[in-house]
């Protein structure tokens, strides 16, 4: 089970766009909690996903105009998956983490 924590501005459709990223992949949302925090809004989504989907989802959410930040917890690496599908989030470009590619 993976939990995703998404900070966003509560503009029209932003929460729907977040949920749609899951529904378009046919994922069952086990739990959704969303509400205001002191500064902005926060949604926590729980669902069963593969590590590949985790990376795709996080990047897709981060591409939404009013999403501020995306975090995930509970990531489990698939057995035998040598390459990491789940990059850091917000997605990091080459630079600091780039050395890992040389390993």
């Amino acid at each position: 089970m993976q939990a995703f924590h998404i900070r966003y501005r509560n503009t029209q459709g932003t929460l729907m766009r977040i949920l749609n990223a899951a529904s378009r992949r046919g994922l069952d949302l086990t739990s959704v909690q969303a509400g205001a925090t002191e500064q902005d809004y926060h949604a926590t989504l729980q669902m069963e996903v593969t590590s590949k989907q985790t990376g795709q989802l996080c990047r897709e959410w981060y591409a939404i105009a009013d999403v501020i930040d995306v975090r995930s917890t509970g990531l489990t690496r698939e057995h035998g998956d040598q390459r990491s599908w789940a990059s850091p989030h917000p997605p990091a470009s080459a630079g600091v983490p780039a050395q890992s590619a040389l390993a």
Partner: protein
Amino acid sequence: MLRGAEIVLQCLRAEGVDLVFGYPGGAIMPLYDALEGSGMRHVLTRHEQGAVFAAEGYARVTGKVGVAIATSGPGATNLVTGIADAKMDSVPLVCITGQVRSPLIGTDAFQETDVFGVTLSLTKWSRLVRTLDELPAVIAEGFHWARSGRPGPVVIDIPTDILKATREFSGAAKFTPHARPADAKADGGFTDTVVALLQQSQRPVALVGAGAKLSGAVSELRQLLDYLNIPTFATVHGLGAVAQESPYYLGMVGMHGTRAANMALHETDMLLVFGARLDDRVTGDPGRFAPHARIVHFEIDPAQLDRVRPCDLPVIGDLAETIPAFHAELRKIPIHSTSSGQASRKTGETWGTQFSDWSEWRAVACGAERRESDPRGLAQPTMRFLDELFSRLPQDSVVIADVGQHQMWAAQRYRSNSPRGFITSGGLGAMGFALPAAVGVQLAKPEACVLCVSGDGGFQMNIQELATVHRLGLPIKMVIVDNKYLGMVRQWQQLFYQRNYAETDLSDNPDFVEIAKAYKIHGWHLNENTMVEDPVASETGNLIEKFLRSPQPELLVFDCHPEANVFPMVPAGAALSEMVFEEE
């Protein structure tokens, strides 16, 4: 005091819009009422899908934001395919839709559709306008998202009462995006790493997508590629970004790419990707895509990374910034000279041997041997016909291809260095795209020769836009490659469904020349037998010349063999190295 509709037009002008495409209807009538005397040029298409594709054509060829207008309900839903197309192909597009009066929203009123909801997953950003006061800010923000980063479609849904209401208007709004705590962007540090990877590599290659064009970085990309001098190939949207005469250019990659490009991609140990999504038509079986390669992905949109295969090194940022930075770093390392004296980095012996006979690879890649991709010869006349057409096109012409076999033949035969010279619906593959898109292209480039290549199936999907072409007197050169089939589907039926040609037979097609005549457009027929002689007979050549040089719109129907196929072909789910070259 201005009406909401007048404010919309003022805001559009402030965004640099002087041309919009649309189709009127009930809820959007106040906006049409305000058009009169506004100085905004409006092009009436004959279907809302025609309007949105025309706006896309305009946007794709100019890089500016295209604007399409439709009414509520069916008018808005008819835009949906174009919106999806713009999302897939990164086209800056703003669609303005009328909505029923605010108090009626949610009541299933006449011509009410939740267009905001319908398009939510297809748009980059969208708004249902709730008050007249917020209208200028909504439009400013919509244009910002349409054109910023990876461009895309925006929907602004405006209830008719807001279009009618009045308020003081002191000028268009400005939008400043909110800063995010950690927007990922390549810093200078990435260049060392990419160069280090390159030095470790023995068989590096470069794959070019549309990103460099969208970033306006084609010149920088070409300079970098000249310096790298490594095998390079392009996606269908990358065509024109790499100079055709470059000795390292191997043509198009992917499902119908060249043997050279696909094999190089399969064998490489380092793949530099410049602004490409790497969708399934480019990668084939993702599990066997560039199986030996480390991938360095230059990309503006982080959401495009790792879609089919994880990349080893993402370089997130505008290619106009990351390419020059990489090139500058590359110039600091020692270089070796090739026999031709061109600057090149060292390549390994294996790669050097494999690519020892560049002329042979390029002959295949650049179509000197058309037979290579058509052993039975059934597609030869059509490919020859396209060669004859393309070779006669004036400089800065624009080719718009629809979707299907003709699209892939056109992409294979296209030989221009014009970055925005080949336009097609690549990601969505929307039949019916070409004719209305050509309308937008011709309006954007009135002096250019605009060649619209369609199949007989796709042309009939937006055939009504012949009326738009005629009304505006647009000198578009329309070609129908008529094989009396839904050709690409038939090809798949032949290859993968035991020749069960279910519902792909279009042998009862109308006479397209007669249809054109009904729209007061001149038409021509050309039989494929005219393309057997080599060179083609002078009268055939003259006909093609006359067709292309005409100052009027012209339609040319080319009869193609019904069972001509597009080869090479990578079957769905196969690796790029498993290209098929013939039917059996």
